[in-house]
């Protein structure tokens, strides 16, 4: 599964809806009504699944699934194996 699909599935699971209903451009907070703590939880799941590590402030610049995917690419260089966290 590619990055966008993995993130979309995580968002859909959180919202309890079909991934087809989630677009990569939707604003997570405004359109999908995801609050900041739930967004942090989502990012934690993405980190875990994709083996990347975000910085504490990364979430502030994240508004859409596309943003998360870009962040994953950006942080891939710094990726750690999950057991090293």
């Amino acid at each position, binding site marked *: 599964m590619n990055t966008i699909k993995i993130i979309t599935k995580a968002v859909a699971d*959180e*919202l*309890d809806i079909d991934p087809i209903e989630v677009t990569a451009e939707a604003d997570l907070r405004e359109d999908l009504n995801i609050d900041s*703590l*739930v967004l*942090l*939880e989502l990012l*934690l799941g993405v980190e*875990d699944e994709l083996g990347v*590590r975000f910085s504490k402030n990364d979430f502030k610049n994240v508004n859409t699934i596309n943003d998360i995917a870009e962040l994953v690419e950006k942080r891939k260089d710094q990726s750690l194996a*999950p057991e090293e*966290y």
Partner: protein
Amino acid sequence: MFRAVITGMGVVTPAGNEIDTFYNNLFNGNCCISLIENLDTSDFSVKLAAQVKEPEYEQYFAKRELKHNARFVRFARFAAKEAWKDSGLNHDDFDGDLCGVLLASSIGGFEEIEKSYTRLTARGPSMVSPLFIPSMLINMASSNVAIDLGLRGSNGAPVAACASGAVAVGEAYLRIVNGIDEIIVAGGSEASITPLSLAGFSAMTVLYEGKDISRASIPFDSARKGFVMGEGSGVLIVEELGHALKRGARIYAEICGYGVSCDACSITAPDKEGIMLAMKRALTCAEIDSKSVDYINAHGTSTQVNDRVEAQAIAELFGNNSPPVSSTKSIIGHTLGAAGAIESVASVLALYKQKLLPNANYCMYDDNCPVNIVTEQRAGNLEYVLSNSFGFGGQNACLVFKRWT
């Protein structure tokens, strides 16, 4: 002084998640204890518990709404919705600024604490969920219910170990009679059938460790060997009498007395004097004497010490002709911080239906427990019912309910 009445009730219990089922199981003495299902007990000496069957949450909530709630919060939200529906309250009937929520728990999100700590030790601090804290804090039941029902008045989660639920109902009574709020959604919730909880209580040697369901939770029986862990939630709509009458509400019973005390002598051992003081204070508050009490819904945990001390306190305060006594815990185990609230529901049902509920599976009289035990369901002429709850820490809370006619 205002008066406080009960106009709605909801439960999530091992004996059922709606009032009629709960009533039938409880008053027929159908013991709801079984082998522990949701965790591997092979390393544990404890094998039995009184477990809740998942409520039909979808009646009230989208799956997403409950996703980040601890089990005890989910129980409370469901029971509160049931109680609210049962009360017949609708949008035009109440002023949210004058309505509150007091929902107790003894421990809160035990399961979330265990899981997050396991994650912390296995994966490190950065892998602990940002939703861990707001999922498990004890006051999250009262907070979520306030959001669900739009109640902006008094709010909180009294903590007094196994007396917590009774304290919540009692404090609701005080707020109503003093004119602070017009309605309080009051009760308790607990979900403590978890590894750490069972290990901790087991280490205290207070749990029954056999496999014989019919001899597991037998309050006041001479063969009792400890309590059985239960789980669940009980919620009552405590409403100012004038408010209830004005909207034509169905009234189950009145709360007319509340007495609390602290043993102030031991953290874990019950004390006869402290228990007597709480019962006396409740009777004084209700302005009745001990002869007026027609039934006592005992704390009755099925531990040797609790039942002996409670029975002796009852015998001393009420004399040789003590009112009939039974313990709800014989049927649904000990639901800790929910117990006082679920037992309030049981006491109110006793008054409303004019029936006494049995102390299930009671068969061996104990000379050290000189009280009149109800052994099977029977009709009663009940005017006043006393409900007892005591907690570790020496906190005692007693409630007096009065028949509504």
